[in-house]
């Protein structure tokens, strides 16, 4: 027993000595914190996009595999913009000096609050970004507790747990929402034109509101350009939920089933689950067999880890741009609390050209561009609710 206690004592002592030598960071930098959801770095999608907005575009830093940052060369900076933001060239994205990103990945759901709190209390971050729907409650709680720190929440508006109405705005919390139904609508219109079999598949991750909006827009787009493939109330479109954002095999399995039943254009709004869709398309023969996949959130046609050759187009949601905008608002001192909704109008959402030119005629592409302008002008408003009745009742434009 005595020996045991002494061992424990030594361990404790050593640990105490260790704690005495914490490093201090230079004080001049503006610290911007970011907390990922459980998907974390490398999800090829949502979290990566947010981190790109902060690390690459705002701070002009390159993440070193394993941890830490190095400076990013001008050429790499330009390449990132070229790859991921060809549609944002007019937005004037340039590096913001003195930005120091502090990123915390969440291992599990109970980590959200401590991670946010740590950035606010210990790291002295000027602004803290919560990535994704899952952090909604946590960001609101911590933002209320630390009124001196600014917070940004992506994809969600905190809601009251009893009435389910949006909670009153906090002056230090800005929520960014996206009009996913708009970009979903455009890729749906493309899918409706591209399909040869008049069978289109949709794979959803988990039916959270942003995913629902993608689905609603996608169905409306198909309804506009190809009523046959839409069917009655969207019944002709195969719509399957994987109930997970991280279950790649499940995504693959769903896609295989859809391909087997004749679908030739597949769209997913399922995060990493959707990677399985590209795998399935690749294995089934890809464009050689007339099969195309449509990516989501970022331009997956630029991602060599996925399947660029079989990516028809992508419904882009510029999370990266929203993070950049919020960061810039801190430096410019223009930060205000409330809800900001990004749409086609301000470049928050869009579609990627990828292989559209190989499949659609120039006239058809012009029609898509027309539809885009009509949405911006407000003459077309894609629905937000994917329920069959709601989409069925939505009236598609006839001339475009």
């Amino acid at each position, binding site marked *: 027993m005595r020996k045991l206690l002494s*061992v424990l004592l030594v361990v404790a002592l050593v*640990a105490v000595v*260790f704690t005495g030598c*914490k*490093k201090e960071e230079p004080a001049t930098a503006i610290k911007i914190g970011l907390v990922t959801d459980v998907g974390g770095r490398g999800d090829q999608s949502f979290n990566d996009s947010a981190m790109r907005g902060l690390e690459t575009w705002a701070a002009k830093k390159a993440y070193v595999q394993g941890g830490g940052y190095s400076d990013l060369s001008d050429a790499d900076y330009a390449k990132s913009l070229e790859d991921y933001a060809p549609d944002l060239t007019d937005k004037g994205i340039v590096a913001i000096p003195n930005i120091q990103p502090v990123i915390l990945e969440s*291992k*599990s759901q*109970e980590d959200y609050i401590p991670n946010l709190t740590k950035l606010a209390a210990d*790291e002295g971050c000027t602004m803290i970004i919560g990535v994704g729907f899952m952090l909604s409650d946590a960001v609101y709680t911590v933002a209320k*507790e630390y009124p001196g720190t600014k917070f940004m929440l992506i994809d969600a508006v905190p809601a009251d747990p009893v009435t389910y109405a949006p909670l009153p705005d906090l002056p230090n919390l800005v929520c960014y929402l996206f009009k996913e139904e708009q970009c979903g609508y455009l890729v749906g219109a493309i899918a409706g034109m591209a399909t040869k079999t008049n069978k289109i598949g949709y794979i959803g991750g988990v039916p959270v509101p942003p995913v629902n909006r993608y689905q609603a827009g996608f169905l409306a787009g198909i309804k506009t350009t190809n009523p046959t493939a839409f069917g009655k109330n969207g019944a002709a479109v195969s719509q399957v939920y994987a109930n997970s954002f991280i279950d790649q095999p499940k995504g693959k399995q769903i896609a295989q089933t859809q391909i087997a039943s004749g679908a030739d254009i597949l769209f997913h709004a399922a995060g990493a689950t959707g990677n399985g869709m590209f795998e399935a398309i690749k294995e089934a023969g890809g464009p050689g067999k007339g099969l195309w996949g449509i990516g989501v959130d970022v331009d997956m046609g630029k991602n060599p880890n996925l399947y660029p050759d079989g990516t028809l187009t992508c419904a882009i949601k510029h999370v990266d741009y929203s993070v950049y905008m919020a960061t810039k608002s801190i430096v410019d001192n223009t930060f205000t609390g409330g809800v900001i909704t990004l749409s086609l109008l301000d470049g928050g959402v869009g579609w990627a050209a990828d292989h559209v030119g190989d499949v659609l005629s120039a006239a058809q592409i012009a029609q898509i561009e027309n539809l885009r302008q009509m949405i911006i002008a407000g003459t077309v408003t894609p629905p937000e609710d994917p329920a069959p009745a709601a989409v069925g009742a939505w009236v598609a434009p006839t001339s475009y």
Partner: protein
Amino acid sequence: MSDNRNIVRWIRSAFGFDRQSNGRGDPLKILVPLVSIALALILGMVVIAVSGRDPFEAYALLFGDSGLIPGSASWKREFAELLLKTALYSATGLSIAMAFKAGLFNIGAEGQFWVGAIAATFIGYWGPFAHLPRVIHPAVCILFAMLAGGCWAALAGYLKVKRGVNEVIGTIMLNWTAWFLITGWLVLGPMAPIATKFISGTYYIAETAKLTRIMPPTRLNTSILIALVAAYATWFLLYKTTIGYEIRAIGHTAVLGMEAPRAQGINVNKRIVQAMFLAGALSGLGGAFFILGLQFQFPNTAIMGYGWTGIGIALIGQGEPFGVILSSLFIAALRTGATSMQVAGIPKTFSNIIEGLAVGFIALQVAVRFYLVKLMERRRLRKAAPESKEAV
């Protein structure tokens, strides 16, 4: 002096290495996990050093901000997080330890955790219970969570004794069933509020159903106290009651298909189902902790990993209830401190590596034991004098 003796004796029996519960009092039972953890920490240092970072700095951050060591400004908050995690992990850890004692491998703690969580959520928001007083409401939620988790696991026990379905297969099957039932149906349909733009997952539990916070302003709640009570109750049940006596006898004879307990008239089948029920109830308790103390609703992504964490914790804890509490504390400390390592640019992977190594060494405990025995033997020979009784 005699007081001191009593404390020592109690600690020994609590960790299952006294002579009474463990024959010749096995010092290895506590040495093996300690040595495994030490080896993991040393090897972890090597890994960090090889990756080009300062291992001392990394460990300073890891343990400095783990909540174990008081002093820093953020200690109180980290301490709170540490204990919250400890409670959460110890629940599934206890569950698996309980099943181990009966010779069962409860790989379904994960599913039982979900079932417990969904039951706690339901009782937490359901109208008829929504106006229960503050202390009663969470108690009722916990009760139902434990019942639900217990029944879910007992089903696997029933399949084992009646249909000969190995409990590993049975519980994995039930994990999938729970997964589809909950994330594929309950969370989307019957338990979700009417379609709204701003919410996902189930209804939120009532304010009265939340666990009481015991150290404001942190979110530390009563879950840690309940976990300690659960550990004590598990220990008491296993070592002080007739049911525990029978369960352990069954566990000791389960592996080789021995039948001594049966020949003595013990109803082995009944006890197996009961042991599974108890194991499931403990997992369900973890689910209740998660809902009533942290999340307040069942989110519509699944809550992943607590069952698997529990396996590692039960292994490190040597399947003893209080060992489980200590090993939960260790794992919780690693995970709490990992946040600070991330801030310093050391990825969270390193704490995962240390965790994995510790569990790995425990899994290799046959080997660790072998070398420890050899080492002790050699020392004994060199001393050539009788060891003091204290070391036993």
